[in-house]
C-alpha cells in the first residue's frame, strides 16, 4: 500500500545551523511529492513540490528538497535555519493513478534553539 514515512517526530536545531528533514515514500507508480509547512495556529501551506524532472526542487524561504528514486526518498534541506522556521513539516505524495488521493506523513516538529 502507498505510504509516506517521516521517521523523525521531532528535530531540534540551533538557529543558523543546517537542516535535513527526512521523508520516505512507498509507491510503485510515478510519485508527485510535496512538502507542506504548518506554522503555529495556522493551516498547512505548500513549501515546495516535485513533478517528474529535475530531482532537486527549490521552495520558498531557502528550502529545497531532493528526490531519489533509488532510495524512495524526498528529503527537505535548508542551509541556515531561522527562528521563524519553527513549525511542523509534512511530506506528502499525490498518486498518478488517483489524482485526488494525497497521502501525508505524520509530520516532523522542528524546534529552533536561539
Amino acid at each position, binding site marked *: 500500500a502507498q505510504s509516506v514515512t517521516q521517521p523523525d517526530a521531532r528535530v531540534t536545531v540551533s538557529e543558523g545551523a543546517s537542516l535535513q528533514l527526512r521523508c520516505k515514500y512507498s509507491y510503485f507508480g510515478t*510519485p508527485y511529492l510535496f512538502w507542506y509547512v504548518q506554522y503555529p495556529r495556522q493551516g498547512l*501551506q*505548500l513549501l515546495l513540490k516535485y513533478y517528474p524532472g529535475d530531482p532537486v526542487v527549490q521552495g520558498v524561504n531557502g528550502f529545497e528538497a531532493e528526490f531519489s528514486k533509488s532510495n524512495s526518498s524526498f528529503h527537505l534541506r535548508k542551509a541556515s535555519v531561522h527562528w521563524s522556521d519553527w513549525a511542523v513539516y*509534512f511530506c506528502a505524495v*499525490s498518486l498518478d493513478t488517483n489524482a485526488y488521493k*494525497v497521502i501525508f506523513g505524520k509530520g516532523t516538529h522542528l524546534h529552533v534553539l536561539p
Partner: protein
Amino acid sequence: EAAVTQSPRNKVTVTGGNVTLSCRQTNSHNYMYWYRQDTGHGLRLIHYSYGAGNLQIGDVPDGYKATRTTQEDFFLLLELASPSQTSLYFCASSDVGTGGRNTLYFGAGTRLSVL
C-alpha cells in the same frame, strides 16, 4: 491567491451533540476535502467532493456526513458527536491536474472539542 475560509475556528460541544463545520473557497477549484489532524496520525481524509452535489468517501468516514451545496461551500456534519471526534479539522481545495499534480490549499482549521 487561493483562499479557503473555515468557520467556526473553535467549537465545544457535548457527547451526542450536533455540529456543523463550514468551509468556503474562492479559488474556483473543483475539489474540496475535509481532513482531521491528530497527534501521531498526521492528516487523515474524511470526505471529499469534486463538485456541487457530489460526495466521495475518504479514509476515516465513520461518524461524519458531508454536503457540497455549491462549488464554493462544503460542510462537515457530526450528528451524534463523540469524544473520539475531538480533533483539529482542516478543509482544503484543489484544482486537480492530470497525473497527480494535486496541490492542496488549506483553511486555518477548526478545533473541535467534544466533552
